[in-house]
């Protein structure tokens, strides 16, 4: 593979990984814009969805039903999390809520360890065809599935927001919670929906990437964290930012790993995050809200729907 082919290879694996980051970032951004909470447990839903799918398949369930069930399981757990841990604390401070999501993440991680142990579980690729050669690089068919998932998810999301009544209601709530309540939109139900949606999306993302990276009980943590980096990179205030951020992060990571060293794997994402946070925390496509007088960045948090009364 020539140098150019190598670069194309980096680009391709960057886009693949980036699509996953984008999906997780999407889940985070939608939740954040609706409830004002960063769900730090999002990575664990990746794990739960993926490992559930693995278990269901090895119990004899065919592929597609296994995946659907796994996603539903993740959704149920997300709903439980929201009702049991988030909704009761809806009036609490940001710090309290952050600690709660961390607590849930730890509990879920421990449960995953309990149920599935530490060893990796392989998930076979969705289709069993040979890799494709393109412009001097190699494309594994699974990568196309990942990309396809990302594209379909984004299209469906935009269709939901633009074309359906419910979607418009959600957009309204994302922009101005109180006005939305005045016209009858229920913030508690929205909050529940946001968490369920993000949990299911994260689970789906994990299922699609597992054939490439294998599934372990702790796969979710780093993926979740990188999803955060992607969301911040793109700007948490809008959905397009999540996608741009995810793809960009994936590409940066792929090139860094390829051209520098693979030990940088996780460090690169952290460095990107710190650089973005120090220079421009609102991200590439976020709203610019830097208050020069006080020298502080305002988190665009005040207008959030919250889960009820915030």
């Amino acid at each position, binding site marked *: 593979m020539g140098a150019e082919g190598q670069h194309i290879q980096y680009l391709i694996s960057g886009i693949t990984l980036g699509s996953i980051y984008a999906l997780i970032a999407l889940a985070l951004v939608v939740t954040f814009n609706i409830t004002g909470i960063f769900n730090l447990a999002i990575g664990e839903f990746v794990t739960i969805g993926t490992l559930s799918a693995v278990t269901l398949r090895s119990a004899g369930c065919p592929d597609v039903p296994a995946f659907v069930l796994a996603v539903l399981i993740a959704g149920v757990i997300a709903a439980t999390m929201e009702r049991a841990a988030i909704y009761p604390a809806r009036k*609490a401070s940001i*710090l309290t809520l952050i600690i*709660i999501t961390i607590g849930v993440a730890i509990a879920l991680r421990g449960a995953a*360890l309990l149920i599935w142990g530490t060893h990796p579980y392989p998930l076979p690729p969705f289709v069993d065809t040979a890799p494709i050669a393109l412009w001097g690089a190699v494309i594994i068919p699974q990568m196309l599935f990942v990309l396809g998932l990302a594209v379909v998810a984004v299209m469906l999301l935009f269709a939901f927001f633009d074309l359906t009544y419910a979607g418009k209601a959600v957009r309204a709530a994302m922009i101005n919670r109180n006005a939305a309540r005045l016209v009858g939109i229920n913030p508690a139900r929205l909050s529940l929906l946001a968490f369920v949606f993000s949990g299911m999306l994260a689970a789906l993302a994990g299922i699609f990437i597992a054939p490439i990276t294998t599934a372990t009980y702790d796969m979710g943590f780093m993926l979740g964290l990188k999803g955060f980096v992607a969301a911040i990179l793109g700007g948490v205030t809008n959905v397009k930012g999540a996608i741009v951020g995810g793809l960009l992060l994936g590409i940066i990571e792929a090139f860094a790993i390829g051209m520098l060293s693979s030990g940088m794997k*996780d*460090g690169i994402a952290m460095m990107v995050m*710190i650089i973005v946070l120090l220079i421009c925390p609102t991200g590439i496509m976020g709203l610019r809200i830097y208050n020069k007088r006080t020298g502080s960045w*305002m988190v665009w948090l005040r207008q959030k729907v919250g889960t009820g009364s915030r």
Partner: protein
Amino acid sequence: MASAKSRYWIALILVVVCVPLFVKSNYVLSILIVIGLYAIIVQGLGLLMGYAGQVSFGQAAFYGLGAYTAAILATKCDWPPVLCVLVAPFLPALVALIIGRPILRLREHYLVLATLGFGILAFAAFNESIALTGGPSGLTGIPYLSIGPLVLDNDRSYYYVVWGVLGLVILAVANLTCSPIGRAFKAIHASEQAAQSAGIDTALLKLQAFVFSAFLAGLAGGLYAFWVTFVGPSPFGFTASIEFVLMAVVGGLGTLWGPVLGSAIIVGLAEFLRWGVPILLPKVGGEFEIVFFGIIFVLIMLLRPQGILAPGRPSGMSGVAVKEEKCSG
């Protein structure tokens, strides 16, 4: 000082001093040392969170920086141990000074993520800088702490060292909170705008709290290095950082004894789970007891988010109650 308060302090000091006379088990003593070390770290974190209204999910990085600095000075530069312990905290303090201004401009979620990211980066650095830190295998051969002819090579004597330092730290923090600076912090907490209009450089004060918290974490790190005589990266990961925040919150932010109580509870809880859970579920291995840890985290936050020693309803910038310590002038 009012005599009631002095009596209270003397009683506490007596209790702390007498414990090793009654406790013979090295296991318990080492737990107490760990609680003491963490209490030092959490005192700083508690000041940062309760008074300066910030948060840091990266204190373990400063803990590690202190430990590694002390270890490197002792093993590679052959400095006397006491000097290493005294000098080590200045490196994390310096790092905090450098990153403090830009990082403290962030709010809420962003601050959480930035400090978390910093902690993760530091941990990665500990693991990767093999020449300096020995990488995952760490640095060995650290000598024992010795003061003159006295060599502190057992848990009993080290208990006194750690709790002695903790006592000094608590004294310093008590001084601070009942001083004009403490008043300034409470003012910032009540109304940052009015505090600035009164001439208080709020950004500087927050930075000073941040640097101080890093200094204390580094101090604990240095003490840790000479206790275990070995420094590896594993105690300095993000899990530790998260636990420190939990200790601060559980004990009660803005209280003097909250950090000690919080550390005792969390460390005690971890030990209890490590002992108890295998009895309940004997077949499972690994560190799954963290499931219970996580559930307990959530329950505490739902039921009493202000912590144990802080009063009433949560309030203030971080939304967690700051118990306004009564200062008797």
